[in-house]
Each structure stands twice: as structure tokens, then as C-alpha cells.
């Protein structure tokens, strides 16, 4: 099935099964986000909603580099990460509905998806707030002699927070296996990177902590995957942190309230031209690795998955008011 063309670089040599898998993953995210936007308009989803369109190659590529034992810490723009990490779409949508079958039992919403079994530590909506946690998860692994990676996603905006600095230093100083993944989409809300960083080449930040670093085109899923696997190997092999910058772009507004005054339509269109899904699909089709039929099937599967997820969310019951104060504290004593 998989045709190897001469002259292709190594990253391009991907077999059809894997290509379809990557495409499927990215399309699942994209369609889910589209559905979320729709459900937001329908007022089924409320609160803040931060969509990931355009950045799919980052979550998909990076998460390919992890095993089930590894931990993931993400931000409020985490639907994609949660989904690819294995949280069911139904549980994700039910969460955004605020329903009992939501992956956070309706208490978290879009910004706070969690899953213990997937070692998915949220869904953190304080910018930079997840970084120290990732350091601690890695510290626990180190102290318990477990060889696991903690992968921490954060935005370009988070780099300005003091917690970025403290976390990088701690992870480097203590030799902790953290894969720091900076999703550099060039904006923190409406603040372009150049207005938030004196030095905009973020990967260079790692040097002052003695941390290995790499930057990658975050619109190219194969490039992300390859570099992430290398980075994860460094972390796994050395037990030390790695700073991994993915250069990407969000196609949509920051959240549903954002009138996007801070960037031009032309800029957005230009980046949309680099859509990670379309680009990858196009390339794979050119190579003959996937066909139109494959893509059609993926779309159908995803459409069905989404329909089922919506139905699941719709059908899920509301948490009883009697349980309002449940989980403020744990129900049992002995840890």
C-alpha cells in the first residue's frame, strides 16, 4: 500500500495506516471544534470556549510521542489534547454541556477537562499555572524511579509569566523529565508575541536554564511528530527536561468574545493557507498514501462519532443539586 518515492525526505515516508491515523486524529479535533462553536451559538455550551482550529498538528504530533503511562498537563485550549489522549468525545461534550457524565462531572466545563485514567491533568486556565505542576509530576516520577515523561503544553503568552522561569529552572536544576511544549501561535489573546517578549525566538529561552531545545513548524504534523519523538527520547533517555517550541497559528478568535481587532484578515487567511489538515491531506494524496475514499471515510466516521457524542451529552443527566458540595473535599480519609 505504502509507496516509497525516491527523493522524498525521511519525514515524508509515512505508511498509509499511520497517515490515515494522523489525518483522522486531526480531523476529529477540527470537527469537534466546529461542533463546539455551533453548540455555543445554540447556547448548549456556555462560559469561555477556546478553540484549537489550526493547531491540530501540535497536539496530534506531540501526543504520538507519548505512551499511556506518561502524563499530560494542558491549558484551557485543550479539547484536542483531551480527545487525542483518549477521553471520549461524549465525555468531553457532556462536560461542556455541564452534565453529570462529563469528564469532570460538569464542574469544569470547556477549560477544565480531566481524566485520571488517561493521566490527563487538565484543563488549567490560569496561564502558566500548569507548569509547576508538571515539574512536580516529573519529580514524583523521579523520586519513585519511574521512567515516565510529563508533557506540559502552554502558549507563547505563558512564557512571560514568572512561573515559566521558575519551572524551567527547577526542572533543569533537578533533572526532571518534563517535555515543555510551547504552542506558539503568535498571540496571547490580542497581544502579539512581539509585544510580550523582548526576544521573540522562544526556543532560545531554554539556553539560560541549560535545557535542550528545538523549534518546529507546528503546521506540519509529520515534522511535529518526528521532532516530538526525538525530544521525548531525549527526556526519557536523560531524565532531563526539553523545551519544544511548535510554531503554529489559531485560525479562530481567542475565545467566543474576541472581535479580533489585533490582527488582519489577510494574516489569518495566509495562515489558513497552511492548514495542517489540508496540507497534510494534500501531500498524502499527491503521494498516493491516502485516497479520496480514505478521507471520505474518515469524515464519515468522525461525523458519526460527533453525532453520538452530542446524543450522549444531550442524554446525560444534570448533576443533582444535592451533590453541589461534593468534591470540595475528598470523601475518604486514608490516601
Amino acid at each position, binding site marked *: 500500500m505504502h509507496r516509497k518515492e525516491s527523493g522524498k525526505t525521511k519525514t515524508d515516508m509515512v505508511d498509509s495506516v499511520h497517515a490515515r491515523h494522523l489525518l483522522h486524529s486531526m480531523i476529529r479535533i477540527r470537527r469537534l471544534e466546529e461542533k463546539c462553536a455551533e453548540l455555543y451559538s445554540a447556547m448548549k455550551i456556555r462560559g*469561555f470556549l477556546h478553540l484549537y482550529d489550526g493547531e491540530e498538528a501540535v497536539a496530534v504530533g506531540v501526543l504520538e510521542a507519548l505512551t499511556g503511562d506518561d502524563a499530560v498537563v494542558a491549558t484551557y485550549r485543550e479539547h484536542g489534547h483531551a480527545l487525542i489522549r483518549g477521553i471520549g468525545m461524549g465525555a468531553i461534550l457532556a462536560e461542556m454541556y455541564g452534565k453529570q457524565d462529563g469528564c469532570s462531572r460538569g*464542574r*469544569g466545563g470547556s477549560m477544565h477537562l480531566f481524566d485520571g485514567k488517561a493521566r490527563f491533568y487538565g484543563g*488549567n486556565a*490560569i496561564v502558566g499555572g500548569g507548569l509547576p505542576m508538571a515539574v512536580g509530576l516529573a519529580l514524583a516520577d523521579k523520586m519513585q524511579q519511574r521512567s515516565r515523561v510529563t508533557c506540559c503544553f502552554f502558549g507563547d*503568552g505563558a512564557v512571560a*509569566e514568572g512561573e515559566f522561569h521558575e519551572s524551567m529552572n527547577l526542572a533543569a536544576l533537578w533533572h526532571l523529565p518534563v517535555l515543555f511544549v510551547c504552542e506558539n501561535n503568535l498571540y496571547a489573546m490580542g497581544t502579539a508575541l512581539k509585544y510580550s517578549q523582548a526576544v521573540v525566538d522562544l526556543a532560545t529561552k531554554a539556553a539560560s536554564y541549560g535545557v535542550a531545545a528545538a523549534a518546529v513548524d507546528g503546521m506540519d504534523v509529520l515534522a511535529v511528530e518526528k521532532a516530538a519523538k526525538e525530544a521525548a527520547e531525549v527526556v526519557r533517555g536523560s531524565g532531563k527536561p526539553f523545551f519544544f517550541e511548535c510554531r503554529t497559528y489559531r485560525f479562530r478568535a481567542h475565545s467566543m468574545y474576541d472581535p479580533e481587532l489585533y490582527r488582519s484578515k489577510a494574516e489569518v487567511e495566509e495562515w489558513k493557507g497552511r492548514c495542517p489538515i489540508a496540507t497534510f491531506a494534500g501531500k498524502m494524496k499527491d503521494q498516493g498514501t491516502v485516497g479520496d475514499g480514505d478521507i471520505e471515510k474518515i469524515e464519515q466516521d468522525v461525523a458519526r462519532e460527533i453525532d453520538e457524542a452530542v446524543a450522549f451529552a444531550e442524554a446525560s443527566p444534570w*448533576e443533582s443539586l444535592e451533590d453541589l458540595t461534593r468534591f470540595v473535599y475528598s470523601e475518604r480519609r486514608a490516601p
Partner: protein
Amino acid sequence: MTNSDKGLHKLTYREAVREAIREAMHKDERVFLMGEDVGRYGGCFAVSKGLLEEFGSERIRDTPLSESGFVGAGIGAALGGMRPIVEVMTVNFSLLAADQILNTAAVYLYMSGGQFNVPLVIRMATGGGRQLAAQHSRSLEGWYAHIPGIKVVCPATLEDARGMLWTALQDPDPVLIFENAGLYNMEGTVTATAGPVDIDRARVCRAGKDITIISYSASLHKSIEAAAILAKEGIEAEVIDLRSLRPLDEQTFLNSVAASHRALIVDEGCRSGSIAAEIAARIMENVFYELDAPVARLCSVEVPMPYAGHLEQAVLPQVDQIVNLVRKMVGADG
């Protein structure tokens, strides 16, 4: 842009804050606004929309995500002769700057033996009710009011949204202004001459002899609504808007309670250790023998704020709860 030369002036709370900022920037060139996304984004809650175009990026200063850094820079700029308005997007994020607020701004004048006052204004959005969950829904204005050296004000009305800023800027000491985000869309009118207001005094919004309802910010409006319902039943509630939580104008509510003999405090903060507790304690300390019933508090249920709408509404004080509580209290031995 404004119609300030005409008599009454219709606008939203958001616009009232914006006009206050504009006016201050025009009146005093030392004034500037700094915070995350105040400029190019147009303000997280659109409060500062248009100001960048009017005043430029030096005076409408977008900051990186560095709460401790830019709040501290606000302190320094104030010490250096400027009159900064620092916007911390929401009170939740102010926790990253808690050290600068408590350990520097609040103590600098005292520690320096009166030499260095810090004329800094910090504005923050506060409050729940918009399904933003635990990390975005705190009401910590009462909590901050525990700290000597700062002032804490809570504009509930358009007049105050319009007027408190200038008063705060005239204050030589740090003033925290808490704007409940749920109020930004509230519409109303202010007089064209709306100007500085006294922020040291509470205000009786509605007179009544049967009970005193003490509130502020968003819950003030629920209290007023409840009072209107109660009035139809013949229960006359006096409603007080605290306006400032530090200093706390106790005289206004003590006088009222001394006359009504009953008090209910409505507060969106979590109950334990709330400003409502402080008010209850002061009432007891000062007019205990005037009380016909124990002072009651209606506060938020003590949980991290849940996302689901029905759960969230169950956390926050509601009009019907106020009505029921008052009915019970007034009925008790009235």
C-alpha cells in the same frame, strides 16, 4: 464620542468605566492604563475599547502576562510620579500579584515612616455567574478588604462606575476597584456632570423600617429586587450599598440597623471569613441591644465555583432566597 454636554446620559456600566478612564486621561497626563490586552485587543471586557486609538500605546499599555511584574511596575510608576491605572483582567489572576499588592503597595507608606505613598489604582473584574468555573469566578473583594494600607471599593451603580475612578486617582494611597463582570452590560443613565464621588460613605439606596439589607456590587441589585417584592407584601426593607469595603463606613449601616432592629447581609463572597462576617460582628459589637433577631448572612456556598449553570446559580445568593430569609426574619417576632 460622548454626549457629556447634554443633561442625562444613557450608557452601560462598561461605558461608564470607559468614560471615567477617558476623562482621567484627558484631565491628568500622569494617568495611564496598563494591563493585559487593554490596548490592541480592546480590553478583555471591552472596557478600554477605542482608547488605544485615542491615547496611543504608551498610555494604553498592553502588558505581557506578568501580573506580579506589571502590578509591581505600577507601584514603581506611582512612586515615580505617574498615576497608573493597572488593570488586572480578573481578580483570579491578581493572586499572582498578591505579593506586590500586600507586601509592597499596602505597606510602603507605613514602612517608610510616611515618606513613600503609592497613588496606584488597580482595577479588576470580579464575581461569578457566567459559567467560567473555579479559576475564573472568584469574588475576593471582601478578602482583600482584610488588608490595612489598601482601600477596596466596589462600584455597583453607573454613577459609581463613572465617579469612583477619579476619586481613587486623587487618593494618595493604593485603591483597588472591583468591577463585577456581570454588571458591564447594565444600562442606565448618569448625569452629564457625573464626577468624582465620595468613596468613604455607604449609601442608603432604599429606605425602609422593617429590616436593613446590607450589600454591594452585583448582589446589591438582587437586594433591591428582593426589597421591591417584599414591599408588595408590606415589608419595608432598607437597602444599603456599602460601596467601599475598606474603609468600611459602619456608621451608615449601624444607624440603619439601630432603627430597623434587623439586618441581613448579602454578599457573593464565600461565607466563612467574608466581609459579611465582619459586618455582622460590627453590628453585634455596636448595636447589640437594638437587635430583635440575630443578624443573618446570605453568601455564596463554600465551593470552588462549578461550571454547570444550575450548580453555579445554586452557589450564588438569589433574589428568592433574600425574600424568604427576610420574610422569616421579620415574621420571627415582628
